[in-house]
């Protein structure tokens, strides 16, 4: 239905009034701050709701738009995190190895007279006895039976069997091992024989101490060198407990070994130690059948 002339005029007037009111309001916003404040306060709830809806719509749009890029970024970050974690583990391993080797080097520098061959522990006894380890150096590297094996903490054991590129090391915690031990404390120097006891904690015991031997818990026990198989002064362990022997004639001490047998990784074999046993061998005699050899 076509609009009548009168209606057209009314519509034109209404539009003109609205336009004028808009211009006045626009002008009032900038010219009269009081009007601006009142109008802003009145329209704030409406603009809050409208703004919330529009930002929600906009946020949803952004969410859908950036989901794929976020997933990609997340995957990349996860990968980077894995790589960093791996690097961290490698660095921790290197740091631990560095510390161990540093200690070994320090030990070598403290004993410049000994030639030492470095070796890696490649296996340990996995059966009922658990008293032997295998190292990756053997006859071809200059190792011989009965050579002492040490690390920075002290004496590990002696070479018990030899192969071209491997060697068996009998741990001092084994009941088969017997070593001459000496109390390091200057006013004591009590001597005895240290051997393993096949117990669960790999503790050692020091026997044949004289009844009046001056030995106390906390004393450090080192090799005496009397056996002819080990150089003197290698740390064996610390005294934990002292008691009289069953017969009451001698003393017996329980020793906690200085070497951590559960975490042996590197070892050094002293190859140029010349003990009494070597002297006997040079004389053409077997040290193992000599009286009073002190054991090995």
């Amino acid at each position, binding site marked *: 239905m076509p609009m009548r002339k009168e209606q057209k005029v009314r519509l034109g007037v209404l539009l003109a009034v609205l336009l004028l009111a808009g211009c006045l309001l626009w002008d009032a916003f900038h010219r009269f701050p009081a009007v601006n404040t009142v109008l802003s306060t009145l329209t704030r709830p409406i603009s809050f709701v409208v703004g919330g809806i529009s930002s929600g719509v906009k946020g949803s749009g952004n969410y859908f738009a950036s989901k794929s890029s976020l997933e990609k970024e997340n995957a990349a970050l996860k990968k980077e995190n894995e790589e960093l974690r791996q690097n961290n583990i490698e660095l921790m391993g290197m740091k631990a190895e560095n510390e161990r080797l540093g200690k070994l080097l320090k030990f070598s520098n403290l004993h410049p007279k000994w030639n030492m061959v470095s070796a890696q522990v490649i296996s340990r006894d*996995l*059966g009922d*006895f658990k008293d032997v380890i295998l190292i990756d150096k053997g006859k071809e590297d200059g190792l011989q039976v009965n050579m002492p094996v040490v690390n920075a903490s002290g004496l590990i054991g002696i070479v018990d069997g030899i192969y071209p590129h491997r060697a068996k090391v009998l741990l001092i915690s084994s*009941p088969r091992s017997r070593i001459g031990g000496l109390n390091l404390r200057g006013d004591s120097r009590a001597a005895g024989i240290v051997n393993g006891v*096949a*117990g*669960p904690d790999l503790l050692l015991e020091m026997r044949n101490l004289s009844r009046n031997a001056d030995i106390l818990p906390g004393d450090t026990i080192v090799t005496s060198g009397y056996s002819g198989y080990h150089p003197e002064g290698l740390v064996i362990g610390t005294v934990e407990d002292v008691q009289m022997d069953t017969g009451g004639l001698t003393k017996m001490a329980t020793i906690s070994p200085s070497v951590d047998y*559960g975490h042996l990784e590197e070892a050094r074999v002293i190859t140029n130690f010349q003990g009494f046993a070597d002297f006997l061998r040079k004389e053409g005699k077997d040290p193992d059948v000599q009286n009073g050899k002190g054991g090995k």
Partner: protein
Amino acid sequence: MVLIGFAWLLFTLFLFTLENHWFLFFNTTQSPDLLLLFLLLYAMDQGKRKGAVYGLGIGALLDVVTFSYFGWHLATRTLIGYLVGKNRMNMFADRLPTYLILTALVTLLLQVARGLFLCVALGRWLPLLPLAAAALKCMGWNLAVAPILWFCYHKLKRRVRSRMDYYYHL
């Protein structure tokens, strides 16, 4: 037949690895004797012949990879497999308490035998207390793990048997 043999070998190596590597992460010098526990289960289930043969295999494996006294593991494991298999009719072999009692008994006997063997080999008496402590610790480990192994073995056995059943494939 070859495949089954290979599977047994793999399973034994798995137990051996578990026993000697995984448990050592716990900063301990001891671990449960999983191979012995499994040997007991197997001998109780299969009898003296298979028990002795499996014991022989386990003993040979242990003697090859250890360096102390060759023949010790071979002899002890074969004997354990044979004796447990032989006496399985005299016990309630399908009950967990029987297995636990047997585990404790065999561990204790093995540790005593080990101590005596060491004394004979070294020609002197070893102190009793550390040996007793080692035996008790070993028994504790074995008793702690034995129920888990029992459960796994019987669960696996039921599954394998049902798969091998004729009606399963119809």
